[in-house]
């Protein structure tokens, strides 16, 4: 990412977090508004952004909280919705070989879809220093929590977040992260397979597991084609 031009090296190290910050402030805000309107207290609303820190799961359980508190179903839903991070964590694992255990523990606490997208690009370029990676994550979560606090404060005043296009921050971040990942035709094929399988499974009523299943199948397709073409060449 070349658009950031700051003179301080410390700020420059955080530059990869900037687009995520731009996205997390409005989504955090939207979550804060929805949570307050669903009847959560400001403390619970903000605590969830600190303790759980997973956008789509948080937005989803807000409606479960509103429907009446059933701790087991809320925790189970969160588990299934967030299980995809398993794959992201595994995919970044090779780059954390030399990290301290405490660094791995701190980094993984703040591993989200978007921070994963940013780090998988950085790590592939060889930029996998632990302190910088953890600082980027901290910056992202701070934006998420600040957005939540502002949303919780505004919650009583705003009913609809649509006029501000806050709801489009998430798709826009996914678009950017995906397009930046695509380097060749096989990537394009895997992306098409992943997206279509995810929608197809969703239409087939596999509404919680669709992302994980589609990811596993599409990545297998990519690795399969890659292995096969390598064999053909040798």
């Amino acid at each position, binding site marked *: 990412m070349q658009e950031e031009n700051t003179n301080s090296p410390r700020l420059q190290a955080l530059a990869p977090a*900037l687009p995520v910050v731009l996205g997390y402030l409005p989504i955090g805000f939207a979550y804060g508004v929805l949570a307050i309107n669903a009847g959560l207290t400001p403390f619970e609303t903000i605590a969830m952004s600190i303790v*759980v820190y997973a956008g789509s799961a948080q937005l989803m359980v807000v409606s479960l909280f509103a429907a009446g508190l059933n701790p087991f179903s809320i925790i189970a839903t969160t588990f299934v919705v967030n299980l995809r*991070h398993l794959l992201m964590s595994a995919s970044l694992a090779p780059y954390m070989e030399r990290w301290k255990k405490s660094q791995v523990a701190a980094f993984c606490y703040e591993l989200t879809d978007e921070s994963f997208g940013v780090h998988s690009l950085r790590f592939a370029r060889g930029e996998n220093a632990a302190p910088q990676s953890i600082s980027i994550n901290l910056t992202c979560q701070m934006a998420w929590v600040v957005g939540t606090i502002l949303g919780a404060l505004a919650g009583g005043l705003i009913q609809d977040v649509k006029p501000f*296009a806050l709801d489009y921050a998430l798709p826009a971040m996914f678009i950017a992260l995906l397009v930046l990942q695509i380097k060749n035709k096989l990537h394009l094929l895997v992306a098409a397979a992943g997206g279509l399988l995810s929608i197809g499974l969703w239409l087939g009523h596999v509404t919680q597991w669709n992302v994980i299943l589609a990811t596993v199948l599409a990545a297998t397709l990519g690795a399969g084609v890659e292995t096969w073409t390598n064999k053909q060449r040798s």
Partner: protein
Amino acid sequence: MDQQTTVLITLLGMGLVTYLPRLLPAWFLRGRELPPFLVAWLRYVPVAVLAALLLPSLLVQNGQLALHWNNLYLWAAVPAVFVAWKKKSMFLTVLVGMAVVALARLVFGL
């Protein structure tokens, strides 16, 4: 148990079931020699998972498939993809995507 305690336990439970899948693969797989196929497989996870997250976020609205002409999310994806592809900037992509949606709502009342 009172309401406040139940909520706190729920939040902690949510935190735990979110943290463990984020931590355990990195914790156990790093520094380990993996079979070549698995290494190749892991390299396709980012593209696969981001696409699997993106398409439903564009096409599913209010719990229904929204494959129609006035799906603003789809239209806004066109300039967003273009900016991401040409400028290689996540920041600009998010900015353009949100600006297009806000503008379209203002002008067309979608």
